[in-house]
């Protein structure tokens, strides 16, 4: 007798077609979030705040309630949603340009205030949707369309490290950085997202999940080489792990 061991999560539209570039890890991130919501059985009380960037078409995939925020203001919108509906699970789905460049003020202040929302930030070290320009998280020496000779610390400065920065805020309850480059890391990422949602439901404070993701089109690499690049070049700059975890006693 056959048993079903994997199927498309129920929180994803039945006839959804993922429209990202071939090999882009966004699709995996969207799927594992939907799986976590299904496993925790909270899909019907979830409100998603989507942002501008490659994450903008979130309503095409999710079978959930979604608010579209202006560029960078996802955490500000999520604050309003959570304060109006405190019993809902509210999370934002943002890119690194949205979270750490135009929305850095909104994001850091929302985390500092300890808003009980979860921010999921997909870090692919460039602006993927607009054609691969330099983002705040672009690592030193990386070639993008606006740093043709590689990012130079003298001219463009150093990359912003989201998790290190967020973990210094007192309002942050759970801060972790994870990756999607291998099957093991995908499972780990899923566990981290679940922990962040549980932390939010327990009312401990803001939670931030930074996910290292690939952008094969703009990195001009194959999907396989992109994962190799994450392991070789991004791991030393952006170490994985849990940066802050509040236990229930500390709240």
């Amino acid at each position, binding site marked *: *007798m*056959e*048993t*079903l*061991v*994997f*199927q*498309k999560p129920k929180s*994803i539209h039945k006839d*959804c*077609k*993922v429209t*990202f*570039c*071939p*090999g*882009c*890890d*966004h*699709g*995996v991130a969207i*799927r594992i979030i939907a799986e976590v919501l299904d496993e925790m059985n909270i899909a019907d009380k979830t409100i998603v705040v989507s942002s501008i960037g490659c994450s903008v078409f979130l309503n095409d995939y999710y079978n959930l309630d979604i608010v579209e925020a202006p560029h960078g203001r996802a955490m500000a919108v999520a604050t309003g949603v959570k304060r109006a509906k405190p019993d809902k699970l509210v999370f934002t789905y943002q890119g690194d340009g949205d979270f750490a460049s135009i929305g850095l003020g909104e994001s850091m202040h929302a985390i500092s205030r300890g808003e009980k929302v979860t921010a999921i930030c997909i870090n692919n070290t460039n602006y993927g949707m607009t054609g691969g320009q330099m983002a705040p998280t672009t690592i030193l020496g990386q070639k993008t369309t606006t740093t043709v000779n590689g990012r130079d610390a003298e001219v463009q400065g150093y990359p912003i490290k989201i998790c290190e920065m967020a973990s210094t805020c007192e309002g942050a309850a759970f801060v972790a950085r994870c990756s999607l480059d291998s*099957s093991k890391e*995908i*499972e780990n990422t899923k566990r981290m997202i679940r922990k962040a949602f549980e932390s939010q439901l327990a009312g401990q404070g803001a939670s931030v999940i930074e996910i290292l993701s690939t952008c*094969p089109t703009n990195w001009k690499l194959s*999907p*396989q080489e992109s994962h190799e690049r994450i392991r070789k070049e991004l791991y030393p700059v952006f170490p994985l792990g849990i940066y802050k975890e509040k236990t229930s006693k500390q709240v």
Partner: protein
Amino acid sequence: MLLKKGIDMGRVVIDSEKCKGCLLCVDVCPKKILKKSETFNAKGIYTVYADDKNNECIGCALCAKRCPDIAITEVYR
């Protein structure tokens, strides 16, 4: 329960119209069953198919968890 060798081992269901041919699933398959197809879909992409003549698939679902396009819709074991 006796495990009859070669029967009911595992099965993957691939929606080739959703496949974009990134071949990430080919790398993670422990039995090397998934292969690049010779034919293409409506978008003109050479997709992936399961070449499982000897019923080797163990239904680990690693391919489905790796697939960024949810093109591997169901896995049976």
